[in-house]
Every structure is written in C-alpha cells, then in structure tokens.
C-alpha cells in the first residue's frame, strides 16, 4: 500500500523483488500459534460463546414442541410462536438479503469482523488448537512432539487429542441435526443406535468435515477454500479499520539493546510476537493481506510487549489506511457506501417485520378449468369450473365462508355455506359457477373469490379469477 506519488516510481523489478520475498504457507507447515491473554482474546471468547446457541438452542421447548424446528418433511418452519410455510418463502429471501448486506456493511466499516470473531471455521479451529495446547503444551513443545519418534507417550497424547476432536465433530453434527428433528428424540435414537440412513450420512459428513476442516485444514480453508475471505477483501476501502502496523512509528525496527531502544530506531523491537500469536501465520507488519482474519490477537501481543518496554500501546492497532497516512477521515454517516447499505438493511428488516406480523392463517389459490374454458348449458346459461385450493396455515380447524364478487345472477354448485378446513392442511374443492348469458357483456368477466374465517381468527384471503363466456 503505497502513496500515489511513490507508486509511479516503482519499477517492474521492484515489484518482482517483493514477490520473491513473500512467503505464503500453502499447507506445507502447521501453524502452532502462541496463546496470549489480552483485550481482544477476551472479546473473542465472548463472541465465540454466541455459538452456544447452536448447541443449546434445540433443547428449548415451546408448548408441546421444539421452540425452533425446521421441519423439512412437513414443509414447516417453527420459530417460537410463528409457523412459516413454503408460501412464505419470500421471507427467506429477505433474511438472506439482510445478512448479505449486513456482511457488506460490517466489512466496509471494520473489515472481516465475521472471520475474526464469529466464523465457525476460525472458532472451531481455535477450540481445536486450545485442546491441542492443553494436551501437548505450548507451541515449542508441540513442534518437538511432532518431530519426536512414536513412543507410548506420543501415541497416548495424539490419540486422546484426535478422539476429543472427533467427539466435538460428532457433537457438531448432532447439534446441527437437532434443529431439523426433535432433539430429545434424536438423542434417544442415537443411544438406541436407531438412526436412519440420512441421519447417519449427515452425522458422518459433519464429524469428518469438522475433524478435517478444524483439525487439519485450519487457516488453509480461509486461504484457499473460503469465498467470503476473498469477497470481503475487495469490499474494504481506505476508511475501513483493520489491524494495522503503524509503519511510521515502528520503522526502522531493531532489536532491543541493553533494555533500551537504539537512538534513531522505531518502536518495533522485532520481537516477532505478533507473528507467533497469529492463527493464520501472517506477519501483519507487511501490511494488510488476504491471510489476515482481523482477529486482533497480534494487537494483544504487541500491546503486552509495549507495556514491558515502557512504550505507548497501539503500535499495531485497529486503524484505517487513511488514519495511518495521517489523512482526514469522514464520519461514518457521511460515507455513501455505509448509507446505501444501511438503507438496504432497513428495507429488509422492515420487510421481515411486516412479513412476520402479517403471516395470516389462510391462503387461497384458484385454478380456472381450461378445457373447456366455459360450458354452455341446455338453457343457454354459461358455466365455468374452478378448482379452489385453500390452505389453513393455523394449528386449529377453521370454518370459513366463501363468497363471490363481480358477477350478477350467478348460481354455484359445490359450494357450501360453511366449509371446514382442517388445521395445517390444504383443502381442495371443485366449484361450478353458472350465469345467464344476458349478464355477460364481454368474453371475460373478473370474478373475485373471498374466503372469510370468523371463528378462530378473523382473517380473509382473496383471489381474482375470471369468468369466461362466448365471444360476443
């Protein structure tokens, strides 16, 4: 990241020089990151705990059923009091829009916050390496153990580590499944070895997936597999705050001599702690790069060193490119991108609130019979045939009345005064509507059907259809 003025002076050779010195880990080496206490470590623990909802959520009850249940075989999503049916799928589009744009907005403001603090890949990796540290010791001991010959101690440690990893993987898979089926029943089926083929496949896929992705692939997933890592990288602008090394303050870096920083040297004492703690193994002092998941652990490391040598904190800090270069930064409400994102997010949020509060209990669809479009009766009347499909989305049986609007002197056949709709079911009726030819002044007369329920819920559903007659 260079100034425009400096950029023009860079020659092709210089660019290639840099590429020669870049080191990118393509999976050849295992990153054994050091764990340090600090502000951002604490925040990470707190944000990680959001995922407890994933593990504990399925055990909440709502009445006599699971509070949140995505019942795919029955095509019903239960979310506390609300039941969402396939007809309400447009809500899902808004949910996706909401999260997609939120991701963009957050990225624009503070970069890959999701990667650093919320992403299951980095969090599961963090838990896996935490277990690794508990069993195998600090990074130096871990490297030593990796190189050590296979003796009883190594086998014992490695076996228990992999076993715990696999158990976490299984728990992840079970928790995932528990959102789609009754959680308590699922555990019963697991202990009685009574899982069906699909459940076994999901459990295997999640166990293996978690084990491989968090145990072995780790940061390589972020480097080479994750599309969001790349997409988010291009959503930064010069006002986005990211973990940044203050080059002006730190350079020229140099080792501490006699417990003092040499005259003319910067604050960076080249202690490499920022590299040692990095879970993806990047050197933040080389500037922003694709491996950085903005978790802030290098900030903790650098701050603790700055405290020790008596220099102010923040040599590495959350800062935007403009701030580091000493430029003026616009306030957040003056950045057009943020305003546009905020607009889209509010649209989606408003739509969701409207949708959830207007779910309705009735849904009416009408199919007009096409062959033939109309039938002439022996007395000259014209008859049309309609297939009514009424969905009772509520969990109680409903009695409804069906009325027609738009046609004069009509008679119906197959339509009762009161129609019983069983709870949660689609009811289908064939209705014949007959009208004298004298009331039809054109080939097509709009005909509105209204279903009105008045017992359980005061609700109506309408559908505009057509009454066809002969060409006049």
């Amino acid at each position, binding site marked *: 990241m260079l100034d425009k003025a400096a950029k023009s002076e860079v020659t092709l050779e210089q660019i290639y020089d840099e590429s020669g010195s870049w080191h990118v880990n393509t999976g050849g080496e295992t990153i054994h990151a050091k764990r340090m206490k600090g502000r951002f470590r604490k925040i990470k623990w707190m944000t990680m705990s959001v995922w407890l909802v994933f593990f504990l959520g399925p055990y909440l009850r709502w009445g006599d059923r699971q509070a949140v249940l995505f019942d795919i075989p029955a095509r019903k999503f239960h979310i506390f009091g609300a039941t969402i049916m396939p007809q309400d799928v447009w809500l899902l589009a808004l949910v996706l829009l909401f999260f997609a744009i939120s991701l963009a907005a957050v990225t624009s403001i503070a970069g890959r916050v999701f990667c650093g603090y919320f992403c299951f890949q980095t969090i599961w990796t963090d838990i896996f390496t935490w277990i690794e540290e508990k069993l195998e010791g600090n990074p130096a001991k871990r490297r030593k153990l990796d190189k050590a010959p296979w003796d009883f101690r190594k086998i014992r440690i490695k076996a228990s580590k992999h076993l715990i990893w696999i158990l976490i993987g299984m728990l992840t898979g079970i928790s995932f499944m528990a959102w789609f089926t009754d959680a308590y029943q699922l555990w019963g089926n697991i202990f009685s070895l009574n899982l069906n083929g699909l459940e076994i496949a999901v459990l295997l896929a999640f166990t293996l997936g978690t084990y491989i992705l968090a145990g072995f692939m780790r940061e390589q997933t972020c480097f080479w597999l994750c599309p969001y890592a790349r997409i988010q990288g291009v959503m930064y602008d010069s006002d986005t705050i990211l973990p940044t090394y203050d080059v002006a303050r730190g350079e020229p870096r140099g080792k501490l001599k006699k417990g003092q920083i040499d005259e003319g040297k910067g604050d960076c004492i080249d202690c490499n702690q920022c590299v040692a703690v990095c879970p993806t193994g990047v050197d933040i002092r080389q500037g922003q790069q694709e491996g950085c998941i903005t978790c802030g652990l290098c900030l903790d490391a650098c701050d603790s060193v700055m405290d020790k040598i008596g220099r102010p904190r923040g040599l590495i800090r959350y800062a935007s490119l403009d701030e580091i270069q000493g430029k003026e930064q616009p306030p957040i409400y003056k950045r057009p991108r943020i305003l546009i994102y905020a607009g889209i997010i509010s649209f989606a949020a408003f739509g969701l609130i409207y949708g959830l509060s207007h779910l309705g209990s009735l849904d009416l669809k009408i199919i007009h*019979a*096409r*062959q*033939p479009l109309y*039938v*002439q*009766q*022996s*007395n*000259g009347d014209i*008859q049309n*045939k309609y297939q009514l499909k009424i969905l009772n989305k509520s969990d109680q049986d409903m009695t409804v009345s069906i009325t027609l609007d738009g046609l004069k002197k009509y008679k119906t056949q197959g339509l009762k005064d009161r129609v019983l709709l069983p709870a949660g079911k689609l009811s289908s009726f*064939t209705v*014949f509507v007959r009208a004298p030819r004298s009331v039809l002044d054109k080939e097509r007369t709009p005909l509105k059907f209204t279903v009105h329920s008045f017992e359980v819920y005061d609700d109506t559903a309408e559908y505009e259809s057509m009454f066809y007659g002969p060409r006049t």
Partner: protein
Amino acid sequence: MSDDDKNKFPGENNTGHIWDDNLRELLNEPPTWWKIGFHMSWILVVVYTIIYPSWPGLTTHFKGVTGWTAMKELKEDEAALDKIRGPYEAKIKNMTAAEIMADPELSEYAVRSAKVLFGDNCAACHGSGGQGNPGFPALVDDDWLYGGTLADIQTTITGGRKGMMPAHAAMLSDAEVDKLANAIVSGKVASEPLFTEKGCIGCHGADAKGQTFMGSANLTDSIYRFTAKDQLASVKYTIKHGVNDASDPKTRNAEMPTFGGGKLSDTDIKKLAIYVHKLGGGQ
C-alpha cells in the same frame, strides 16, 4: 528433434523432444488432483461392471452381482404402486358406483385413477376435458341424450350407444325441411305443425325434448348434437340424411363403441362413470 547427446538442456528431466531450439517436452508428473480423478474413474468403471450387467459373452452376458435389470426395477415400482392401490381397489370392487361416489375418499381415488383411463379411452373423441368435438358430444354440460345419472353413464360406457334417425330427404320437401330447421334453431319446434304431422313427435316427444330411453335429441335447448358454425345448415343436413341410416350414404355417423365385455373392467367403468359424472353435468 535431437539425440540425447545433443540435448541443450541437460539435467532438467526433459524427454529430449526439442523443437525450434528451446520448445521442449518435460517429464513432469501430472497434477495430484488429475491423478486422483483418473484413478477414481477407472475404479468406478470396474465397480460398475461388477455391480451391473456388463461383459458380453457368446450366448449371454455377465448379470452383475446385484442382478439388476431395468425391467425388474419397473416391476418393483409397479408392485409398490399396486400395494398402495390394492386396498382401494379391493374396496371398490364390490361397491356400486353410487356407493363409491358417496364416500369422499373413494370418490377422490376413483376420479384420480380415472383421469388416465379417460385420457386413454375417451379423450380422443370427447376431448381431454370432456369438452366434446364436432360430431362428438360434450360431457361437461347438462344435456344428456341417454340420461345423465350415474347409472345411465355407466350403462352408456359399458354397452356403447348407436344413434338412429331415418333420412327424411325423400319424405320432406325442401320447404318443409327449411321450416322445421328454422323452428328447431329458434327453439320453438314443438309448436310447429309439421313436427306433429310428419311424425317427428314419435321419437322426439310431444314437447320435442327428446327421450333418453332411445337417445333422441332435445330439440328445444341450445345444445346441438351436431355442432357447426352454420347451425341452421347443419340441422337441415341432419333432417335430410338422418343418423346412421344405412340407406343414405350421406347419413350422419353417431356411434359410441362398447367398453364393457372385457375392454375395460367393471371397476374401471365405475371409476369412469364417476369421473364423467363429476365433469360438471352429472344428474
């Protein structure tokens, strides 16, 4: 191409194939992902040929360890369907069409399974929705030549029908035919003196509304047995040449084939009768 001793690029593991001084073929390993794909492919081929029918022999072929055949799969699928249909079929076998129609579930079953039967046996003449075709009556209206009750429809399907009306070209003058045809089209044929004088009344009834026991058409309503753009001309033609009158080569043809007697099972006919009854005009 040059020999090994002339190789200008020794030690880089090339094949010795060098073109245009420096274009050369190296002996690099194929990429790992490619090799994985390659090995998976041939393993798939081997496993497939073990599982499924494959290698040809002189008189027969290797049947595969699973013994799978497309025909067997079809039979299994059909058996699975029959298992679902079985209980319904057993139930409706000994019921009358009216009893089946009175039961909502069985009636729904009859209508759904008759849809295919209707398409196979009826739609060619009566149209896919029973809307009728020129010369073939509509099944959706409330006008029935032979009666529109469930039992009537069942009888019609089982035994077929053959319309019958003598040709009147020799018995009536053109003026008389004109008069009668105009009276029919205007719907007031019953008060036309010729209707009684010429004996039309014998089949079509004193009120000209036809008689279902013999299939004579109702001449007062707005539905015609033989529809045409020029309805008047069509009516005249029918009066002159009759229906199924062997003595007149230009006679109208109106015959519905027999579907009973082995062509369709009694159960299928019951299902079809219900289906037709429910098309809109059943009485």
